[in-house]
């Protein structure tokens, strides 16, 4: 979706509102706006759903896919807010049922901000993995290759695996934090720095839990019915659902503090047209999550999964490697190393922009909340 699409959509709403404000037929126009918006949503999510499962760059749940998802999120957010607030009388927003729905929306927005911050921390963990994988790649690419390089690669890969399988539960965080540095003797420090990303800064806050946040965000999230389905409660619901959905995807994809029991069911109303693709993405990720949850893992991010698979296979190789090694095996490994190098390259390109995009989403949520609060304040009946 391009920027011009969006600006023309916003322009349309603005012009429309100016023309027909306080006139008959206002409601029909609004319904039309809403339908157009839903159609666009449907298209955008359909595009996301159609991403190939295994393609080098644009794969489902890959870094670039998540960036696209966040782009979609930012667009929807702008448009939804336009439908809700642009040229609108503040008093409309503070009438029932919106006087209940908007504060609920804002509660979700606050929770989403914390999730964005958790995901920002999570991206740091992914970057740490990238650095370790890069060490392994550079060792494995060495010519001539010998046992020394195999050991070097293995060391990095073992660190990588343990960083990936970071236990996101709180107990382990505290254990690490409390562990004191005391090794005058070397025995204690064999693997000490593998787990360092389980440190304090990884936490959003003590006892914070990503899965509980999602759970709380889905409370009271129900599609409006009857006449409400075509007026203001509808965009509030859409915005809420998209926020919850996008945050849920972020948590599933990127390592976060305490994800156990992450809800795999979001209350997506499948009877509405625009949610088809959204539900499709949701089902696909939900299934994947169920498959992986037991194992304890770094998240469903395509690149991380790829890295995990390649890492494991390369550890096996370095474990059994004896100089000079079989030609066939070495060729196979060379292909894997090239693949791992490619994953690293994509991470190197994509992670920083991803982190910035998550931060942008965070700032957007902050502004969004302020705007709604301002409108609520304006519309509040004078006591």
């Amino acid at each position, binding site marked *: 979706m391009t920027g011009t699409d969006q600006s023309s959509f916003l322009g349309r709403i603005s012009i429309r509102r100016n023309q027909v404000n306080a006139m008959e037929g206002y409601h029909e126009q609004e319904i039309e706006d809403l339908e157009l918006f839903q159609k666009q949503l449907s298209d955008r999510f359909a595009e996301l759903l159609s991403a190939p499962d295994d393609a080098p760059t644009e794969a489902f749940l890959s870094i670039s896919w998540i960036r696209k998802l966040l782009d979609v999120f930012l667009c929807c957010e702008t448009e939804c807010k336009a439908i809700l607030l642009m040229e609108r009388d503040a008093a409309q927003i503070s009438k029932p049922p919106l006087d209940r729905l908007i504060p609920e929306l804002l509660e979700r927005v*606050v*929770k989403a*901000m*914390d999730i964005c*911050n958790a995901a*920002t*921390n999570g991206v*740091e963990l992914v970057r740490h993995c990238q*650095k*370790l994988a*890069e*060490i392994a790649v*550079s060792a494995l690419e060495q010519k*001539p290759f*010998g*046992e*020394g*390089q195999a*050991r*070097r690669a293995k*060391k*990095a890969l073992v660190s990588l695996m343990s960083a990936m399988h970071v236990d996101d539960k709180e107990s382990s965080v505290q254990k690490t*934090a409390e562990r004191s*540095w005391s*090794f*005058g*003797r*070397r*025995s204690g*420090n064999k693997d*000490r*720095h593998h787990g*360092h990303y389980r*440190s*304090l*800064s*990884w*936490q*959003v*806050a*003590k006892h*914070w839990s990503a899965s509980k946040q999602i759970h709380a965000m889905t409370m009271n999230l129900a599609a409006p019915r009857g006449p409400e389905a075509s007026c203001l409660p509808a965009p509030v619901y859409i915005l809420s659902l998209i926020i919850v959905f996008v945050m849920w995807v972020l948590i599933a994809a990127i390592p976060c503090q305490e994800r156990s029991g992450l809800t795999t069911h979001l209350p997506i109303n499948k009877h509405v047209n625009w949610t088809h693709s959204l539900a499709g993405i949701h089902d696909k990720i939900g299934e994947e999550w169920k498959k992986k949850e037991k194992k304890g893992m770094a998240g469903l991010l395509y690149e991380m999964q790829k890295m995990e698979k390649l890492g494991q296979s390369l550890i096996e190789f370095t474990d059994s490697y004896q*100089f000079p090694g079989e030609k066939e095996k070495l060729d196979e490994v060379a292909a894997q190393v090239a693949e791992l190098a490619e994953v690293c390259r994509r991470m190197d390109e994509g992670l*920083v922009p991803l*982190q*910035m995009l998550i*931060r942008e989403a*965070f*700032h957007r949520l*902050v502004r969004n*909340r*302020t705007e709604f609060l301002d409108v609520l304040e304006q519309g509040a009946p004078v006591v």
Partner: protein
Amino acid sequence: MDGCQSGVPTYEGDLHVVAAAHHIVKALGATKNLSDDLRKILIDLDSHLSMITSNIDSKGGRGLVDVEERLDQAERKIMRWETDPMMIWDSGPKEASDYLEAVDETGKLVDGLRGLSVHENRKQKEILHRAMNILQMAMSRLEEELIHILVRHGQQFEPKHMYSRSIRKDIVYDESFISVEDEPIKETSSRNYSNDESGECIVDLVHADVIPDIKSIAKVMFTSNYGPEFCEALISVQKEALEQYFSFLGTENLSIEDVLKMEWTCLSSKMNKWTWSMKIIVRVYLASEKQLCDQVLGGLGSVSSYCFLEISKATILCLLNFGEAVAMGPHRPEKLLRLLDMYETLACLLRDIDTLFSEEAGSFIQLQFHELLERLGESAIAAFEAFRVAISSNGSLYPFAGGGVHPLNKYVMNYIRMFPEYCNTLNLLLKNQHPGVADQVTEPDYGLDASLLTSCPMAYHLRSITSCLESNLHKKSQLYKDEALQHIFLMNNIHYLVQKVKGSELRLFFGDEWIRKHNAMFQQHAMNYERATWSSVVSFLKDDNPGSSSMSKSTFKERCKGFSVAFEEVYKTQTSWSIPDPELREDLRISTSLKVVLAYRTFLGRNLAYTDDKCVKHTVEHVENSLLDLFEGSSRSLRNSRRW
């Protein structure tokens, strides 16, 4: 260097060239002040040339044997430590330098052997692999040693002597004004660090003695292409140390949700702590961390700034998120000063931040800081507006007993007394803010004498705030049924206002004209009070026929009685009224006394003939003394006054 790899010299002439080149390289290598890059090239060249020489020699078999011997020797030195439970750098400088020498030697041999075409000689290949094995072992060991050194010699510094914490008392706006006290606040204790006082304050995060050790490990690891391992180890230890320091400062990670739900007292102390920690972390800790990275990794391009960013990023984001959460929270008036503290802290740290994160990779952090600063500014303005709204909308159902200084007045004046400390910041933030049209102040004409301070944005807003306050006080005065008490109330409150302005730096912003005007105002209320209370009382004492010498006895009796009753009534009511300021009280008593006592004395003097009569209930002295009981805030009665 690629060109060197092609050939191994086969005849005498080449041998000389190689020997000569080797000589030059060695001589160059001995030069001091070489850049690290250049030194590395020379070292590579050196090992390469010696390898060529040994290869030429190896025609006779001696060269490789020599290489192998050198490797054996290095291996022995390196392997010895693999089984030793002691750390090398703990065992002494000699051990450490021996070890480094052996690693260096191994590295040279690896480089040299690699430079030769390996396919030619099976033996040579074997030696290379053995050397690379040993090198890997040594690198792994160096990584452990590095972590050990960093942890063992890491130093925590006490923040106490750096900055004393702001201990200003909070002034909380609540309808009951429980927290309002009128004690003088020690201005000095509140902000005893100025923005630029802290200056450059760098400490050694790792003991200075071990920096050369760390540098030597860095050098050998980077030379052998183990730089990434070095960085990861450095980052992991230093990152954790920073986090520990962060919690040592008593700062904890808080979710935005937590911050938004936090009670004010708790939030206030966290905001205070944030301001304090932010300064220490950026000015002292991060500046020191940056120095450490530069000391250890200087000359390696962007490596130092990469490591620094990785070490500090998470903690910085954590601090920033708290700031964001505070800025988005409800804009309550009491937040204003804390927000300004945070704003000023951030504003004065921006330059440091821009320097610390000057590289492109750090621009993300820079940007976040700038965004937060903007947000805090907006939030401070919103809190300022909330303050103004709170003042104008503070309503009362009942009159304030005694007519003394209203708590709202105390609250506002004690609050704005702090503003001059934030003058520059407030001027910056308020520059584009106009007070609401309804609150427009009729600005006194400062004419050409107007100083810069009386015409700055803050001064304008200050006067607009006090004018909100004044109109609210006028509203409150309407609650009194007694007109005289209305005047007492306004006199008290405007007097208090003026005193607060005169007694603090506020006077510079309000200006003499304002003070003069308000002095006149409370004096006017004092006069109005006298008129409202005493005109009717004194009217009993008036001489209807100034020409004749005396009045009839019955008239005198009647007047006397009227006066006594009225005076007793005033006494009874106005002893319960209050004028908290002793001087003001005294002044009013004197002027009342002048008016009433004089009239009473004249009245009695003119009618001396009747003064023995019982109808003269109060002597002049008695009236004079009674006036001293007024405005003390406790109701009294004059019934048995004869005893006096």
